[in-house]
């Protein structure tokens, strides 16, 4: 029976660990960061123990149903009436207790390693604020704000640069979950939580809000762009630069600054200083809009301004009710914000 268990486990492990780490397909069994890796190893151990217990108990159940079923040739006499056995009770109490102790110790070790980790002084600090239904990312060390796509440097084994993420919420509960980088941690109003990641490989890792937060919780997606240090520094420099100003889109800019857009959105260097919606200073540096609900291209952006309900029902952004030519001019302006 033990050989059978071992065989099943090795097949199962091969099945879950086989595919290469594709960051676009979130998978808790292809970790790319230390916290996710610790959880992965613990999960394999727990799965092995549970699979072994399953095989033993299921075999006993199947055996007793088959072996002790009433036969057609049964003489109708009662089977031996057994009321219990203290030795048996002791055995199936002590063995589970030992299993639980082992599982607890293994678990406590990982809890300590992930939750009580210390950070080197060069750790990147990011503050994440959950909103209905998008993510705000503040880089306090650099002094800028972006949305929905978190950029972090890859962490070298020799010189680790982990990212320490402080989690806050502006409205309801949310949860930050990028399965290949770390387990989830909630963003709760009036409470400061934190987590950390140290991605080992570059790529765009996808995740999503993992705590029901209202109507459009399902389309509160999340991207973490892991870049080489050089690319990350370049991105930082781009984000710190002032917003682009081009005369060709002055009309669109004027529309932006004279409509309700400014109440919710910020564009650095303009009068738009709203904080309710995402910062648009470098809008076109992002791959998606509406927290991953649509691609960030001209057509989707125009549709988003015209009527967000089409792309993301329940979004808190109102339809702007602009005339068609104003809509075009405004879209031109936004597309210029690189």
């Amino acid at each position, binding site marked *: 029976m033990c050989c059978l268990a071992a065989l099943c486990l090795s097949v199962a492990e091969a099945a879950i660990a086989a595919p290469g780490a594709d960051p676009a397909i979130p998978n808790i069994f292809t970790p790319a960061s230390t916290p996710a890796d610790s*959880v992965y190893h*613990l*999960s394999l151990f*727990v*799965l092995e123990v*549970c699979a072994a217990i*399953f095989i033993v*108990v*299921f075999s006993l*159940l199947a055996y*007793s*149903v088959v072996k*002790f*079923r*009433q036969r057609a040739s*049964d003489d109708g006499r*009662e*089977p*031996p009436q*057994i*009321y*219990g*056995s203290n030795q048996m*009770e002791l055995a*199936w109490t002590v063995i*589970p*207790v030992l299993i*639980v102790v082992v*599982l*607890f110790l*293994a*678990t406590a070790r*990982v*809890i*300590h390693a*992930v939750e*009580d980790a210390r950070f080197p002084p060069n750790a990147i600090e990011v503050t994440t604020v959950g909103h209905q239904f998008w993510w705000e990312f503040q880089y306090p060390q650099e002094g800028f704000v972006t949305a929905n796509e978190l950029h972090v440097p890859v962490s070298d084994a020799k010189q680790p640069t982990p990212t320490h993420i402080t*989690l806050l919420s502006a*409205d*309801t*509960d949310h*949860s930050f979950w990028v*399965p290949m980088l*770390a*387990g*989830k941690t*909630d963003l*709760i*109003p*009036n*409470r400061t939580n934190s987590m950390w990641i140290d991605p080992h490989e570059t790529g765009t890792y996808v995740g999503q809000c*993992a*705590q*029901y937060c*209202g*109507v*459009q919780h*399902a389309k509160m997606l999340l991207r973490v762009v892991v870049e080489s240090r050089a690319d990350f520094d370049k991105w930082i420099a781009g984000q710190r630069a002032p917003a682009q100003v081009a005369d060709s889109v002055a009309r669109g800019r004027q529309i932006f600054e004279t409509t309700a857009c400014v109440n919710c959105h910020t564009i650095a260097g303009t009068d738009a200083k709203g904080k309710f919606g995402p910062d648009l200073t470098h809008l076109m540096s992002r791959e998606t809009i509406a927290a991953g609900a649509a691609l960030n291209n001209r057509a989707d952006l125009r549709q988003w301004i015209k009527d967000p309900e089409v792309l993301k*029902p*329940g979004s808190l952004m109102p339809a702007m009710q602009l005339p068609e030519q104003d809509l075009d001019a405004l879209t031109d302006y936004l597309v210029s914000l690189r």
Partner: protein
Amino acid sequence: MSNAESVLGPMPVSAAREGAKPFFDQVHEWIVTVDHKKLGLMYIIYGILFLVIAGLEATVMRIQLAIPHNHFVSPQVFNQLFTMHGTTMVFLVGMPILFGFANYLAPLMIGARDMAFPRLNAFSFWMSALGGIILYFSYLGGPGLYGAGSAPDVGWFAYAPLTSQAFSPGHSTDYWIIGLLVSGVGSIGTALNIVTTVLCMRCPGMTLGRMPLFAWLNLVMSAMVLIVVSPLTAAQIMLLLDRYLGAHFFDTQAGGSAVIWMHFFWIFGHPEVYVLIIPGFAVASEIIPVFSRKPIFGYSIMVAATVAIGFVSLGVWAHHMFTIGMTSYANAFFVASTMAVGVPTGIKIFNWLGTMWGGKIRLTIPMMFCIAFLFQFLIAGLTGIMLAAAPFDWQLGNSYFVVAHFHYVLIGGLVFTIFAALYYWYPKVTGRM
């Protein structure tokens, strides 16, 4: 001789008189009844009615989820569906049906003429019924004057601050609160009744150590209801105060705490799972020995394991909160307590296997449901151990893994044993095989 015959044969006369009663008199009799058997049947029928409604809600959800980017229902309606399905199954299906069986069977098993407080029994049933009606009235009354959404859409766990006026305008959340408040009063009343009946109304000679396991397990379940429904009721009142009288218990915009709601909800919510599952164990503990043709294996250990589950399950609630950023010590404590529940639960499974071992198992419908229960509950327990490992839960929590685990527990543990009980006691209740 003729006298004797008439004495021996009153049944047909009485039956004829019964049948002759006008329809409204019969209905009236059921409405004003304080008889534990009638109330038990009403609980069960009420629960089956809502089982159909909650099943339809689940069906619509599964149609929506059948293909990606489906537009069968809107996000708003989907959120209402999972809220109503969860709330209905726990409060209007699970609890009423298990109270129904306890009401019908516990007095018969311990040799009592009726429940200890027949009028409280009727009152409790009608409070539960009213709670269900209030919850479903939200489809009509929910929009209120605001024109907001109809049925509640805050999840069955109703996390703050999504339930505050700012995020849930209209009355739908109020119907959720008041519906559960009212049915909670009914649950507490019936639980009190079962505890009193089992402790005080046993016939002479029926000591606690000789009591059928069914009565024992329902005693433990009822004691747990008394302990755990009260915090939920208190939290519902606090939430109403928040919404209408400007209190700030859970209103985070005014400095309240969302985490306090989680604690209140799960100190109810987790033991509630055991409240639902222990009567399932009770049914299995009656049926498995009968169709194995052997007495239950380890009676006193079964009782001890159930009482242990009852106590330990009161200290595990924050395993629903592993992701809220508790300290490593708090997380470790709840890992230990949660895994510890696995031990008495495992003992129970082994004792049922011990009952079947060496027996002559008759594979009748109730027995097959019980075997399916053992299989599903094994998976439920093992996935529970996986979720109890806090770091693994950081990945699995709030995903479909949890939904699957929970449904293994409650479909395998509760619904299958309810089906087993319906088949097993149907002849007893109706007089027809």
